[in-house]
C-alpha cells in the first residue's frame, strides 16, 4: 500500500506538473496544427466552392464562396463523366487488386518473414531494384506481354490490368507485410505447433489475424493507388464500359480548354468516396500503423 501510495503521489505531482506544462504548450500546438490543417484543407474548400459556381462566376470569383449556388454541376458532371460506369469499374479494380495483393503478398511475406528460405535476401534485393525501374522504359514491351495474354489466350483486359497493378505494387506490400510479421512474437505460433497445427494453419489462424493492421495499411495504400491511377488503365483498357473513375476527369477537358465548373464538381465526386472510406477506417488504419509502425 505504501509503495502504491508513493507511486500515486509521484504520479500526481508529475501529472500536475505535466498538465500545467501541457496547457501552456498546447496553445502553441493548436496554433501550429490549425495553420497546417488550413494549409491542407483550403485548396479543397476552394474546389468545393467552385463546384457550385457557373464558369462565368469562376472567372470573376475564382477563390471565394459562391454567390449563387449551382447544384446542377453535380448531376451534369455525373452524366458527362459517365461516373455511374467508371465508378463501379474502379470499385472492381480496387477490390480485386487489394484482394489479390493481400493474398499473394501475405503468402510471400509469411514465407520471407518466418521461413526465410535460401535466396530470400536476393529476392528482397530484386524487389527493391525492380521498384527503381521507370515504367516508361518498359511500357511498350509490357504492352506486348499483356497483349499476348489478351489476344492469344483471350484473358479479359480487366484481369490483366489488375495483374499489372498487383505486380507494380508488389514490392511495397511485401516490404510492409514482411516487416510487420517479422516483429510479431513467435510464442503463439510455437504453442500452436506443439498442439499439432500444420504450417498452413499456423499461417492462416495465427499469423494472418495478428497481421490484420498491416493488411489494412497495405490495402489502403494499394487501394488508393489503384483508385487514383490512370496511365496504366489508359494503356490497357480500350473499352469505355471498362474505364476507371480517373478517366472521367478527362471528359471535362478539350485539347486546349477545360470546363472548370464541371471539373471541380467531378473532382469532388472522385474524392468523396475515398475520403469517406478513409475517414471511416482511419481509426483502425492509424492504430494499425501505430502497432506496426516501428517495425516498418
Amino acid at each position, binding site marked *: 500500500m505504501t509503495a502504491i501510495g508513493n507511486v500515486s503521489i509521484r504520479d500526481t505531482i508529475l501529472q500536475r506538473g505535466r498538465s500545467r506544462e501541457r496547457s501552456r504548450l498546447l496553445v502553441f500546438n493548436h496554433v501550429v496544427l490549425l495553420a497546417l490543417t488550413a494549409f491542407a484543407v483550403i485548396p479543397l474548400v476552394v474546389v468545393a466552392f467552385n463546384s457550385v459556381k457557373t464558369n462565368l462566376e469562376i*472567372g470573376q470569383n475564382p477563390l471565394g464562396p459562391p454567390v449563387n449556388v449551382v447544384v446542377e454541376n453535380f448531376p451534369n458532371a455525373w452524366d458527362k463523366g459517365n461516373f455511374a460506369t467508371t465508378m463501379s469499374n474502379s470499385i472492381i479494380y480496387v477490390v480485386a487488386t487489394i*484482394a489479390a495483393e493481400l493474398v499473394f503478398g501475405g503468402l510471400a511475406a509469411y514465407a520471407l518473414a518466418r521461413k526465410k528460405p535460401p535466396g530470400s535476401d536476393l529476392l528482397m534485393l530484386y524487389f527493391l531494384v525492380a521498384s527503381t525501374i521507370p515504367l516508361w522504359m518498359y511500357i511498350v514491351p509490357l504492352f506486348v506481354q499483356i497483349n499476348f495474354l489478351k489476344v492469344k489466350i483471350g484473358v479479359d483486359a480487366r484481369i490483366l490490368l489488375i495483374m499489372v497493378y498487383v505486380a507494380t505494387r508488389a514490392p511495397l506490400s511485401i516490404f510492409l507485410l514482411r516487416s510487420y510479421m517479422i516483429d510479431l512474437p513467435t510464442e503463439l505460433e510455437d504453442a500452436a505447433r506443439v498442439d499439432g497445427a500444420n504450417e498452413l494453419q499456423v499461417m492462416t489462424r495465427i499469423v494472418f489475424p495478428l497481421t490484420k493492421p498491416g493488411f489494412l495499411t497495405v490495402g489502403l495504400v494499394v487501394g488508393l493507388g489503384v483508385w487514383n491511377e490512370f496511365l496504366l488503365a489508359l494503356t490497357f483498357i*480500350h473499352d469505355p464500359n471498362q474505364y476507371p473513375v480517373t478517366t472521367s476527369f478527362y471528359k471535362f477537358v478539350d485539347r486546349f480548354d*477545360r470546363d472548370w465548373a464541371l471539373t471541380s464538381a467531378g473532382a469532388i465526386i472522385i474524392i468523396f468516396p475515398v475520403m469517406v472510406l478513409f475517414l471511416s477506417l482511419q481509426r483502425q488504419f492509424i492504430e494499425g500503423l501505430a502497432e506496426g509502425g516501428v517495425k516498418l
Partner: protein
Amino acid sequence: MKRLKILFAIAVLVLALAPVGAQDVTTVTMWFGEGSTLDCWGPLMLEFNEVDPSVQLEIVPQADTWNVTRTAVAGGGGPDIVRTPGPSFVYEMAQAGLILPMDAFADEMGWGDFFFDWALDLGLVDGQLYSLSDELETLVMYYNVDVFEANGWTPPDTMEELNALAEEVEAAGLTVFSHGNASWRPTNEHFVGEYWTQVAGPHKVYQALSGEIPWTDESLVEAIELLDAHMQAGWYGGGVDLYFTNDGVYRRTSLAEGSAAMNIEGSWAIRGTVDYFGESGQTWDWAPVPSHDGTDYFTIGMGNTSSINANSPHPEAAAQFLTWYFSPATQGKMLTNCLKGPAPVAIGEDVLGALDPRIARIYAALSDASANDRYGYTTWTFWPPKSDVYIYEEIERVWTGEITAMEYSEGLQELFAEELAAGDIPPIPTR
C-alpha cells in the same frame, strides 16, 4: 478477410460476364480524344452505320489518345483506324510496318476524285500512300472588334504597323495578344512557324525545308529575334512568365472580354472563339497575320491523319469507312455542324456559303493563298519529329534568355540536317 473474399468473388463474377459481340457484322474501331470535340463529331461519324448495316463504326473515347494509340500500335494492338497528330508520325509507323499502304484502296474507291492532289501527296512514304490528311488548318489573327472600334484601331498588315499598334494597345492598358501555353505546351511552335513564314517569307522556309539554305540563314534568324523581341516586350499574354501560365480559358476570355486586343491562333480555335464571344456579347473578326511586307501569307497545317492498322483483321471495311468519312458530303456536314476543320477535299461552294461569312472567309483565303503561291508551312505538319520537338521546347530557352536566337537556329540546323540526311522528313510539295 471473409468480407474481402466475398468481394473478390463478386469481382471475378462480374469480370466473367464479359459482353459477347455479334458475329456477322464487321466492326471498325477508331479511338478518339475525350471531350467536347467528340460530343459534336461522334454522332455525325456514327451516321456511317446507317450506310451499310454489315460494316459498323465503333468510336472508343480515349483520354491521352495519341500516347495510348502509339503504345498500342507499336505493341501489336490498337484500333483499325490509326489517327496520328501529323505526317511525321505516319512516317515512323509506316517504316516500321505498323500501318498499311492504301494505294489499292485509293484507286478502287476513287479517293483521287475528291482529295486535292497535294493533299494525297502528304500521305506518301517512299512513294506509297500510308495516310489521309484531315483537319486543314491555318493561323489567323483574331481580334476584338469592339475594342478596335472603340479605340479607332485597324488590324495591322505589316510588322511595322503591328509595332505601332502594340504601343497604342499597351497605352490603353490592354494586353496585345492573349497568348499563353499552359494548356498546350507545343503552342510555342505556332508562333515560331508563323514568324518564319511572315517575316522571312514562305520561300525562304521552303528552301530551308528542302535543305538548300540552313536554319541559320540571316532572314530566318531575324524572324526568331523578332518573335523574341515581341515576347520580351510583354505582348504575349503580358510577360514571358505569364505566357507560361496563361491557359486556354485565359486565351479565350481575355480576348472575348476585351482585356486583350488580338490572338494569333489556328482555325481550330474558331469554335471556342464563337462560344466565348457569344457569352461576352462582343464581336470578333480576324485578319491575316501581319508580315514583313504586308503580303497575306497563310501557313498550311494538318491537324490529324488517318491510316489503317497493319493488325486490322478487315482493312477493306476500314477503307470503306475512310471513303465515307473523307467524302466532301460528310466533311461539309461536319464543317457546318461542328466548325470542324475540313479535310483537304473539294467541298462544295454551297457548304461554305451557308457558314458565318467570317469563317467561310478563312477557308476562302487559305485556298486563294495556296493557289497563288502565298502559302506557308506549319511546323507540326512539315518538320521531322525531333526538329519539331526542338522547335517548341528550345524556343523557351530563347525566351528565358538562356540562349540566343542564333544558338537556337544552330541547334535546329544540326538536328534538322541529321533528320534530312536520314530521310526522316515528311513530303514537302514542290513550289
